[in-house]
C-alpha cells in the first residue's frame, strides 16, 4: 500500500516524493479513450454526423422536399443535372432505336413518346434554373436530392435513437437502482411490473397507440417517441438492478453508510459509477437498435410520414429500384452502416475507458 502525504503546498505527494494531481474519472477515461484508435475514429465520425445533423438547415443543401420530375432517378454526378438528364434521355432513345432496328417494330409508339419527352426536357432545360443543380449523390424517384434527403433522414433517425436511448437510460437507471437498493417488497413490485411490460407485445402496443392517438393532419413521430420510451427502459432497469444488488453489500458502501451518507448519495455517488460500464455498452448498442426499429415501423406506416424521411424509409424506397438505380439504395445504406459501425466502436472504447475495474490496466 503506497502511503500518501500532503506537503506544505497542499499537493498530493506519493512515496517517491513526486507531486500527484488528482485525476477525475472523466479525465482518466478521456486519456485512455484517446489511446484507442478505433474508438477515436468512431468519435470523429459520430461528431461529423452530429454536426451535419445540427447544421443541416444552414448548410448549402437543396431543399429535401423539392421535386422535379424531369430529374427523377439521375445517377450521382458532378455535372449539372440538366446534362445528366439529357444524356439519360439520349441513352433511352438509342436503346429503343437499337431494338427497333433488330425488328421490334411494335416499339415505334414508344420511340415517339421518348422523342416527345426528349424535346420537352430540352425546352425545360432552356428555361428552368433547376437544371443547373448538381446532385453529387443522385436523385430519387421524384427528382429529389439524395444528399440532402440522406442528411435530413439522418436527423430523424439519430433523433429517434437519441430519444430512445436517453429515456431508456434515465428511466432504467432510476427504476433499476431504486429497485435493487431498496429490495424487498418494492423490488418485488417493480420487477413484476417490468415482467408485465415485457409480456406485452411491443408492436401491438405501438400499433394500438398509433391508432388511438391518430390525429388528423399531424405527423406521427411524437407518438413514436412515446411508444419507444414506453418499453425501452425494461432491459436496462434489470441490468442496473442486478449490478446494484451485487455491489450494495461491498465494503465501500458499508463505509459510506457508516459515515452517515444518505441512500440517494450512496446510490448516485457510489453505486452507479460502478455500473457505468454496463450502462454505456448497453446504450451504445441500443441506439442502433432504436434506429432499426424506427425503420421497421416506418415500413409499416407507423413511423415518419412523407415527405420527411429517415434512413429506414430511404433504404426501403431504394430497395424497390435497386437493380436500375443502385445509388438510391447504396447512398443511405452506406451512410447508415458507417454510423452504426462508428457507434459500436465508440461504445466499445467508452466501455474500456470508463470501466473502474480496468483503471489500473494502463
Amino acid at each position, binding site marked *: 500500500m503506497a502511503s500518501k502525504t500532503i506537503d506544505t503546498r497542499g499537493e498530493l505527494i506519493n512515496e517517491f516524493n513526486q507531486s500527484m494531481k488528482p485525476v477525475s474519472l472523466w479525465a482518466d477515461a478521456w486519456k485512455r479513450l484517446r489511446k484507442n484508435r478505433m474508438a477515436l475514429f468512431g468519435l470523429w465520425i459520430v461528431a461529423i454526423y452530429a454536426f451535419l445533423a445540427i447544421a443541416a438547415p444552414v448548410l448549402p443543401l437543396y431543399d429535401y422536399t423539392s421535386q422535379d*420530375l424531369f430529374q427523377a432517378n439521375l445517377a450521382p454526378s458532378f455535372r449539372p443535372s440538366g446534362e445528366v438528364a439529357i444524356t439519360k434521355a439520349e441513352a433511352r432513345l438509342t436503346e429503343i432505336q437499337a431494338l427497333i432496328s433488330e425488328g421490334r417494330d411494335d416499339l415505334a409508339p414508344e420511340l415517339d413518346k421518348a422523342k416527345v419527352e426528349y424535346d420537352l426536357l430540352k425546352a425545360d432545360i432552356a428555361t428552368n434554373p433547376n437544371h443547373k443543380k448538381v446532385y453529387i449523390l443522385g436523385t430519387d424517384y421524384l427528382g429529389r436530392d439524395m444528399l440532402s434527403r440522406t442528411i435530413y433522414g439522418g436527423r430523424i433517425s439519430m433523433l429517434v435513437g437519441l430519444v430512445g436511448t436517453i429515456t431508456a437510460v434515465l428511466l432504467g437507471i432510476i427504476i433499476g437502482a431504486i429497485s435493487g437498493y431498496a429490495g424487498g417488497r418494492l423490488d418485488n413490485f417493480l420487477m413484476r411490473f417490468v415482467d408485465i411490460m415485457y409480456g406485452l407485445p411491443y408492436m401491438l402496443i405501438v400499433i394500438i397507440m398509433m391508432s388511438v392517438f391518430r390525429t388528423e393532419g399531424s405527423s406521427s413521430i411524437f407518438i413514436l417517441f412515446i411508444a419507444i420510451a414506453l418499453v425501452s427502459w425494461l432491459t436496462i432497469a434489470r441490468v442496473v438492478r442486478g449490478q446494484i444488488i451485487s455491489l450494495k453489500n461491498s465494503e465501500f458502501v458499508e463505509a459510506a453508510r457508516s459515515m452517515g451518507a444518505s441512500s440517494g448519495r450512496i446510490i448516485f455517488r457510489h453505486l452507479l459509477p460502478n455500473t457505468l460500464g454496463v450502462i454505456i455498452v448497453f446504450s451504445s448498442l441500443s441506439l442502433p437498435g432504436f434506429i432499426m426499429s424506427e425503420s421497421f415501423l416506418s415500413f409499416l406506416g407507423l413511423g415518419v410520414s412523407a415527405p420527411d424521411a429517415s434512413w429506414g424509409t430511404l433504404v426501403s424506397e431504394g430497395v424497390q429500384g435497386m437493380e436500375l438505380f443502385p445509388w438510391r439504395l447504396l447512398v443511405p445504406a452506406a451512410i447508415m452502416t458507417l454510423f452504426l459501425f462508428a457507434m459500436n466502436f465508440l461504445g466499445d472504447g467508452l466501455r474500456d475507458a470508463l470501466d473502474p475495474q480496468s483503471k489500473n490496466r494502463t
Partner: protein
Amino acid sequence: MKRILAVLFVLVAVTGMFAQDFVFSNASEPTLDPSLQTDTASTNVYLGLFEGLVQYDPKTSRAIPAVAESWTISKDGTVITFKLRKNATWSDGHPVTAQDFVYAMRRILDPKTGAEYAYFPAMVIKGADAFNSGKGKAEDVGYKAIDANTLEVSLTGPAPYAVDMMAHSSFGPVPQWAVEKFGNDWTKPSNIVTNGPYLLKDWKVQEYLLMEKNPKYWDAKNVKIKSIKVLPGDNDTTNYNMFKNGEVDWTHGIAVSKIDEIKLRKDFQASPQVATYYISLNIAKKPFDDVRVRKALAMAIDKKAIVDKITKAGQIPTDAMVPPLAGYTPQKGAGFNPEQAKKLLAEAGFPGGKGFPAFTYIYNTNEGHKAIGEFIQQSWKNVLGIDCTLQNMEFKTLLDLRDKQRDFTVSRNGWVGDYIDPNTMLELFISDSGNNAGNYKNADFDKLIEKARTAKVSDRYKIFQQAETMLLTRDQALIPIYHYVNLDMIDASKWGGWYPNPIGFHPWKFMYKK
C-alpha cells in the same frame, strides 16, 4: 457421392417431366366459394374451377355461351330465358341444373350469408335487393327454374349489360348438396364439387394451388392446357424476376420501379381497362363540403405528369370517372389549372392556403401509391399553400377506415369495372352505396342512375352523361387521376388464346400452347 448425385439428377428429371404445363402468379390467395369472392385473384381461380351461365369472351370480355347454350331476351328487355346444355355435369357426376343457379342466387343474396358482392346481382335481378336487405322473400327473387334445363331471369329493367354481368363469379352455380353436407368446409380440396374446365387438385396455402383438367367437363376436348399452378405471389419484383427466369408463364403484377425496362420487352402487354384511379374527398367534412375547395384541389394536380413520369406504363390521364367507351363521351371535371385553383381557394376563404385545416391523405402501402401521394402533396403545397400529411396503412385497414367507418378526409381510391358500361363506374356514388367513401349525397344523381336502369337502350348513355356531369363537372365529388391499363407479362408467341381485353379476365379453357 456420385451415386447420390445421379439419383438426384434422375429425380429432378422425373419431376420435371410431370411439371405443370402453365404457372400463373396470382396477386394473392383466392377465396374459392363463388358467393364469397370479392377480388380478382379469386375470380381468376373461379374461371378455372367453375362455370356460370355465360363466360367472358377472351377478346372482348362480352358474354358468350357456357353452361347456357343459348338465351332469349323478351321484347321489353326485362326477362331473359336461358337454355342450359344437357351434358354439363358437376365433378361428382350430378348434372348441372337450373336449380343450382337458383340456389346459388338465393344463397348469395341471403343476408345470413353476408356476401359482400351480393349488391352486384342485386342491382339487376328483380326482387334481389329487397331480399338482400331483409325486406323481401327468397321466392320473389327473379330467378325461376322452369325445368331442369330452363332458367328464367327477371330484371329490374331492360339492362343491356345484364348478360355480360352474369359471367361474374357472383352469378356462379353452387352445389347445394355439398354446401349442406360440409357447411363452410365445402371448398376444402377433399370436399369441393365444381363444374368448370379444371378440378382443384391441391391447395397449399401460401405455396401454390394446383388445377387439373376436368375430364368430365362438357367441352373437355377443347381444353388444351392439362394443369395450371397458381402461385399467390404478392411481391411485384419477385413476380417479375420469376417471369424473367421462366419460372412463371403469366403474371399481372408489374414492378413500377422497373417499368422502363419492362416496357421494352416483347412479352409485356398493356391494354386499356374499364378502371379509374381517383382520390376520394370526404364531403361530410369541412372545408371539403365546399365545391370551390374540391375544384381547387383538383385543378392543382398535373395528371399528365403523374402518368408520364411516375406510373409510366401507358395509363391515360383523366378528368372523368368513366373511361371512353364506344358511344359514351365521358363528362369531365376540373382539369389542371394552377391559376384558377388559387383563385377558387381564395374565394372559398383560404387565400394562399391560409387557415386551411391540416388533414391527412391516406393510401395503402405500395411504392406507386406513395410516389403519387408525395407528388400530389407537393402540388397542393406549391400551388395552393396547403399542408397535408401522408399516411400509409395496410390495405384492409384502409378499406375499413375509408369505406366502412368513413373516418378519413382524403384517400387514394381506385375502381375496376365489373362489366363494360358506365353504370359500373357511376353507381358507386349513389347515396347508399357501400363504396361511396366520399359520402356524396345527391337525390337527383340517385334518380338519374335509377332512371337509367329502366330506360330505353338508346337513352341510357345520355342519362349517364347527365349523371356524370352532375358528379364531376358541377360537384367535383372526387378527383379522377387516370384510367388504369391492364398490365400483363405473358409470351404471346408461346401461349395462344390469351388476349388483352377491357375487363382483364382471361378464361383458362381457351388458352393453349403454340
